[in-house]
């Protein structure tokens, strides 16, 4: 999906289009984001966790 780095590379599971609209950050379950495909109009849920953390004060030698 273009325009939002949190969803880079997400594609429609039916037609593989990347022309998606995010419908809801919390989809049919807490762990999912809901998208609608602009090409085939499928609505689908995508598991969101990619290990991204909110802004975190820097510590030089923190384990990643």
């Amino acid at each position, binding site marked *: 999906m273009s325009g939002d780095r*949190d969803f880079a590379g997400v594609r429609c599971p039916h037609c593989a289009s990347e022309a998606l609209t995010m*419908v*809801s*950050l*919390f*989809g049919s*379950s*807490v762990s999912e984001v*809901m998208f609608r495909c602009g090409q085939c109009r499928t609505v689908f849920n995508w598991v*969101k*966790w990619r*290990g*991204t*953390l*909110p*802004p*975190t*004060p820097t*510590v030089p030698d*923190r*384990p990643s």
Partner: protein
Amino acid sequence: MTTPDKDALGEALRNDLLALADSKLVLANWYTTCVHNGRSLPDFAALLGMATATFGHTRALYLYLVNLGCDYDGLERRAQPAAFCSMNLLDRPPEDWEDFIATVYLAELAMWTFASGFLGHPDRPLAGLIRKIGEESYFHLKYCQGWQSIFTETGNRRYGAALAARLPAALAWFRAQEDDLLQAAGQRDLPLSTLCQSYRAEVLNSLGGASAGDGPPASLDGWDPQRRRAGTMPQRLFEIIRLKDPGAVLR
């Protein structure tokens, strides 16, 4: 400075994690109580989703506190508002939708910034729990940022005013004792004062320089460093968050 003893360190960690857990308990109740104010179906899904995750964080932290000598049932069943350690920021209910989003944003970011000090904690289960909490909080903050964008695009000034009015209470939550025992003992990655500065910078940055500043510091009256709050949780809030008596039904 003398080397802190094991008991004092354990107590300091217990206090800080309980302040975090209790604040999350209150925040989760903010989500469930305010869900009917959602502006759309995605809002309802988001508020209930964030409530689920936040209650989950509270429960996970309470369970971790058992390792530090706490009794899980005792934590859940505290019968007096004075026994709770939630942040003052969440004492006063939201005045409107803008104040709700501003407060939730301040609370989520404060709790994350505070918790992030334990990402390098020597007890790896705690560090892992904190990381998981962060991954979930990321999307709570993203939800707030979505609303922030809408407020900015529509020239909504109420949001910035609400944020500025609440910020001093949020900053006060980071207040440190003279010696940050946990940081000195390598259990907190950064001093609380540094975490607080990062937090303040992030909040002001979120306003894109449109802030009028963060007002005078919150009052120190009645500050309890152990519970990380001033005074006692309001009775009305306590009635919402406390576990109800067996057989009680809310109507």
